[in-house]
């Protein structure tokens, strides 16, 4: 079925299409329960400046310098949260940046709070930054509180036509078409959209 990833990827594509004219940058992140181990807060947060920098002609001097300094430290610890937030701040201050985060509820709760607080800091200091988040409704209050209540919300309720066209395309991809007849097909196209509308 359609997941929030589809919505997020659509938004990312739209923002990327217009990024060149608007001279904006776009960075995204898709949380996934199945990948919680690899998706550390440092890796996640660091991937945001990474995406912005990879779209730039040159690595910003402050980041190149931070890297040089880091290299000099033998047995240096990994990047600290404050270092990453500072580098994200450096990149978003060079270009207005859209940040899209999918399935935030799939991020480990204690990382989620750190992440939201860090993003709030970025939003306060760089007013050109805009943040798009999807998630289940139970994190709605937390998102509002941690982001200084500067949050508009939108419930994802796809129109019936969307559901039907999605079902049609999936039925077209059926690998066992012999098991399908026109009666079953029309039942599917009628009943599933009804059930979803009642949710």
């Amino acid at each position, binding site marked *: *079925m*359609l*997941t*929030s*990833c*589809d*919505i*997020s*990827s*659509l938004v*990312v594509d739209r923002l990327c299409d217009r990024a060149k004219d608007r001279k904006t940058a776009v960075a*995204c*992140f*898709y949380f*996934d*329960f199945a990948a919680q181990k*690899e998706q550390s807060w*440092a*890796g996640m947060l660091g*991937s945001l400046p*990474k995406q912005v*920098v*990879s779209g730039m002609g040159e*690595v910003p001097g402050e*980041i*190149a310098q931070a*890297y040089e300094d880091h290299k000099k430290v033998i047995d240096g610890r990994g*990047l600290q949260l404050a270092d990453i937030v500072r580098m994200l701040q450096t990149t978003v201050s060079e270009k207005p940046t859209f940040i899209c985060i999918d399935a935030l*509820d*799939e991020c480990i709760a204690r990382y989620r709070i750190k992440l939201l607080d860090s993003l709030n800091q970025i*939003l306060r200091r760089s*007013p050109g*930054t*805009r*943040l*798009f*988040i*999807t*998630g*289940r*409704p139970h994190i*709605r209050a937390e*998102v*509002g509180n941690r*982001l200084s209540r*500067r*949050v*508009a*919300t*939108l*419930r*994802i*309720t*796809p*129109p019936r036509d*969307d559901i039907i*066209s*999605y079902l049609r*395309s999936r039925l077209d991809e059926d690998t066992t078409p012999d098991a399908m007849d026109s009666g079953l097909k029309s039942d599917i196209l009628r009943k599933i959209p009804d059930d*979803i509308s009642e949710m």
Partner: protein
Amino acid sequence: MNTINNFTFANDRSDILAWLSPLNPKLRHQDIRDGRVGNVGEWLLQTEEFRGWEAGSAGSESDNPVLFCYGDPGVGKTFVW
């Protein structure tokens, strides 16, 4: 000396990117985009909420820089329906 430094920086570009994060969310984005069906979800881009968020009005007191989209509580991966 500066020239040498700049030369080093240019060569270090991919090292710097890897140092910032080992993760590559843009690759994941491409996978998701490739699996997306037709124009499903386009309606969201037409909503007042999305348009207002995208256009923004930085500096205005009432501007919300964040848009939070939520689906129904479901089971498994974040299904919106």
